[in-house]
């Protein structure tokens, strides 16, 4: 026991780094699907809303984040796209953050390819346009005016989905996956409050507490909070992805830290009691 205490108390912190690195890497290498995920009300409400949308409804997903928030928000986008394509909904994607344009494009194309849907008929990518608030209010009046062409340069009027939607009100659901401002609050203040459409949201751990009042006030049909929320959505969707893996990794990280603290205290306890006897 003495040897153990000595070892633990003089443990070089670099060993902790190495173990933490391995623990976080395990789920990346091979998925674990740790049990215990319990969907929160916000995520359940969001999932149920999409689940109950009739086939052929249109949904707008706005990717309002940059690569820094990718681990938390990109999985939400993937899960929602998968869900929408599975329910045969028509998806329009866009983004308000210029730094997130390429990420948005890559995500949408990858999931569309996976779901085997066709561009223009099943999904459209409008891309990014400068102005945030002006973009939202412009889309509230006339989307074709705000986005004359899509991200690929096609005239928007030539796309089948876009012939059905002309203003934000025409969408059955608008979702903003946002890492800050412009984001959910911008969409609510300048969009849904004024033009009256259904809004859903996804956000990072840091921003989630600030957004939850919108959920309580029913200004959002649902709210996905942080990587945990994304994992819960994937769980409801029955399609484990990056978020569930991430949640596994982060859970393991938490267990490791708690374990380290306990181990340190056991070691500390033994050295202390020994000293007590000696004194």
């Amino acid at each position, binding site marked *: 026991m003495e040897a153990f205490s000595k070892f633990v108390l003089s443990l070089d912190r670099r060993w902790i780094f190495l173990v933490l690195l391995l623990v976080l890497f395990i789920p990346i290498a091979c998925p674990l699907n740790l049990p215990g995920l319990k969907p929160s009300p916000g995520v359940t409400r969001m999932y149920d809303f999409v689940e109950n949308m009739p086939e052929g409804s249109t949904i707008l997903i706005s990717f309002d984040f940059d690569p820094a928030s990718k*681990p938390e928000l990109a999985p939400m986008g993937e899960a929602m796209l998968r869900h929408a394509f599975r329910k045969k909904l028509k998806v329009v994607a866009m983004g308000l953050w210029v730094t997130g344009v390429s990420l948005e494009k890559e995500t949408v194309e990858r999931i569309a390819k996976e779901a085997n849907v066709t561009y223009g008929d099943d999904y459209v990518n409008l891309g990014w346009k400068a102005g945030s608030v002006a973009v939202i209010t412009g889309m509230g009046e006339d989307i074709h005016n705000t986005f004359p062409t899509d991200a690929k340069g096609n005239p928007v009027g030539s796309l089948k989905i876009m012939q059905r939607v002309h203003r934000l009100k025409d969408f059955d659901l608008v979702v903003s996956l946002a890492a800050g401002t412009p984001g959910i609050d911008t969409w609510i203040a300048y969009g849904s409050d004024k033009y009256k459409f259904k809004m859903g949201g996804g956000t990072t751990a840091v921003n989630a507490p600030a957004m939850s009042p919108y959920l309580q006030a029913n200004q959002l049909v649902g709210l996905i909070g942080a990587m945990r929320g994304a994992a819960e959505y994937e769980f409801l969707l*029955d399609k484990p992805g990056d978020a569930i893996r991430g949640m596994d990794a*982060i859970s393991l*990280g*938490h267990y490791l830290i708690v374990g380290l603290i306990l181990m340190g205290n056991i070691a500390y306890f033994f050295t202390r009691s020994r000293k007590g006897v000696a004194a």
Partner: protein
Amino acid sequence: MMAILGVWVAVGLTLFMFSFLYKDNPFYKVGENLYVGITIGYSLVKLIFETWIPNVWRVVHPEAGVWFENHEWWLILPPLFLGSLILTRFVPKYAWLSRWTFAFVVGYGSGLAIPAVQKQAEATAHPLVTHIESFDSADKAATEAEKKATDLAASKGAGSDEAIKARIDADEYRERANAAKARKDAVSAAGARADKARAAANDARKQADEMAKKGPADSEEVHAAQKKATLAERAAIGAEMATWTAYSKSEYSVLTAWGDFTTIVLFIGVFSVLFYFFFSIEHKGPVKVFSRLGIIFLMIYFGASYGYTVMGRLSLLYGRLVILRDACYPSVGFATPVLLVAMITVLVVLHFQNKDKEENA
């Protein structure tokens, strides 16, 4: 080509910075100095094009100046003057002139800070014990007040001050009675919703069980039905909880008592922590009891906040690792493994070299 180069550079620099976790080493030093050099260069360029040109240059050369449209041109003189004073620091003899600018900056910050912090001082004053008025008593009080108002209006005239006052009082009582009624109604409404949700959940569960009995228990439909039942049950529990919440708002219950307890704890916490911070009294006697209580609150706060942040920090780290994983594939030329192996090799060689040096010395 530029994109792949970008990936290699990004992965390499990430690994350079991470190598600090092992120990200070040449890779980290390169990364660190690159970082410092680039950030200063970057902010200098941004400053020139985003501050100097629009705010200063354009005012002197009015083409499409942003400032020029919004401000009078002479308004750039004070900042130009104060800015030049900062530059006197390059001339030691006149360096003291820069103090004028510091005085402006510090004074400005102080003047701005005073009202800004005032906003925090909104009081924590809440009743420590919730008093919930039942509808019956509120209704009684309202009826009485209304009668009094009518009587006064009859005896002293509707326009008299006393009558107006009585009428306003009566309105207030009536409002309170209406609120009590709304609370009462909310309980029964929530109860009805909960019953409905529970029934739906039972139905869903039954259906799922039947399906499992009939068909192969492992089929996808059964899974879906079971999942649906679980979700419905969860919704029912939520609805039942909502009934409870509504109930505890309409009558004093365990939940209300818990709320009061929370308010009292909050009150004691604010009180004792503020007490801990007093500078002019020594921490002994009853003061010690309070300040120790304050320390307890502080410790819980520190622990809880620390624990709460772990999630966010690990997510960040995980995100970086995913980026490193994404650079493992052939499409980007195996950037992560190649760079990792190369770096480890160099570090091992350096380690042995240093060891030799130490032994020779």
